[in-house]
């Protein structure tokens, strides 16, 4: 279903899903891999950060826009290693 929705916006070619794959991975990670609502919110955050930083910050421009989204993920994961809404893992020895 997501594939058919995306196919309208981009050119249909065998590799077109790889970008979508990266973004969906990114959203799932940011929200926390075991949280459904987190993925939705994180998806919105990533999309907004990417387009707005691309539009407003000149240095970033069009080419580095995907990078900013990934930087956001790294920073968030550094603060919360299980994502924004992920549940904490209990470590046993």
């Amino acid at each position, binding site marked *: 279903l997501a594939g058919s929705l995306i196919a309208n916006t981009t050119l249909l070619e*065998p590799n077109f899903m*790889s970008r979508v794959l*990266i973004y969906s*991975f*990114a959203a799932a*990670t940011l929200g926390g*891999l075991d949280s459904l609502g987190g993925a939705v919110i994180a998806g919105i955050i990533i999309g907004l950060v990417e387009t707005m930083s691309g539009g407003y910050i000149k240095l970033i421009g069009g*080419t*580095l826009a*995907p*990078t900013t989204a*990934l930087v956001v*993920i*790294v920073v968030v*994961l*550094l603060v919360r*290693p*299980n*994502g924004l809404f992920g549940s904490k893992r209990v*470590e046993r*020895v």
Partner: protein
Amino acid sequence: MASIRIRQGTPAQRAYAWVPWILVALCFIYPLFAYKSWMPAVGSLDQAFRVTPINEVICYAVAILGLNLVIGYSGQLSLGHSAFVGLGAYTTIILVSDHNWSFFTTIPVSAAACFLLGCIVGLPALRIRGLYLAIVTLSLAFVFPTLVLKYGSLTGGPNGKKPARGQAKMDPPSWVPFNNAGRLASPLWVYTILMVMAVILFILARNFVKSRPGRALIAVRDNQTSAAVSGVNLPIYKVLAFGVSAAFGGIAGTMLMINKPFASDTQFTIQLAIFLVVGLVIGGAGTISGAVPGALVYVFIPYFMSAWTNDQSGMPVGIKQITRPLFDWLSTRQGKGAIAGVFFGVLLLITVFILPGGIIDGLRRLRARIIAVTPNPGWLRDRNRTRGLKPIDPLEDPAGSNVGPLDDVIADNA
């Protein structure tokens, strides 16, 4: 149970330990002479220029070796290795074509640059683990080509970068037994150089893994908490694993440039990162030698898939009859070269199901079924001789019931 047993310390056991290495060395030397007419040519090695893909195998083997240090030994899933290989390649190519360095002097520079970048990437690994770390490193692989495009004045952008014609022409060093004369000699001396570099790097990696830091990494992989409790400094060793792995990747990038002095953003994409991991798993994660079959698979499956879909005549005879319908069908399709990706996926699944430890682990288990080395502890033999007991033969008495009373041993250890 193994069908053949060899006792330790016998000539048979010594031969068993040495002959495989001699065979491996012969395999390394063979491509240098395969093109000569007096040598029976195996496969398509009958001409010197066909050595070029083997050179590529050597480079990627070093890259996979580096990846193995971080994934196989320290247990941190890193999907950003293509960025390290790319950084090494670009460091070399920029220094060579813009600053007139020679290829060899760029090796320490690209290794150091990649070591630094690897340490920086390793820092998040201190807090992030497992799949999350995979995503973070994957983002590095994703970002690298866009950075290359962004700074096009330095990296050549989408056109790629290579030394200008006639500039920075690489001559064979004096210790290589080939000169640059003749169109076909060049891949051979490049092969010699790369092989020497790779052998040195493999020995370094083996020593690294067997030394104190390597054991610390394995401890971190097996159980982080117990490793920390046992006195392993987690932050330092985790970052070190990334740094060393990245340095190997950078040298692999330099080696790729020695082989083919051309770098472009399409070479070092996310695909390379993923295929390197696939090669690592197929070859065997956590084994040093697993990098070689991994790289062979990585280079030769696309190579032969695209060759065979066009022309089946070069295929080995036994396989040809079985796979003919498949390749007949494939050759009528569009985009037939892309089928290699499908085969990678299938091969990965098969490997994970049949050989969970990769090709090398499978070979080792097969060998253990055929040949077993029985230990022949010298102290037991000497002791029984001095006490006038019957000499122990572990082949006849694996359970050791003929050892005799062990009271003296107990007394010695008391």
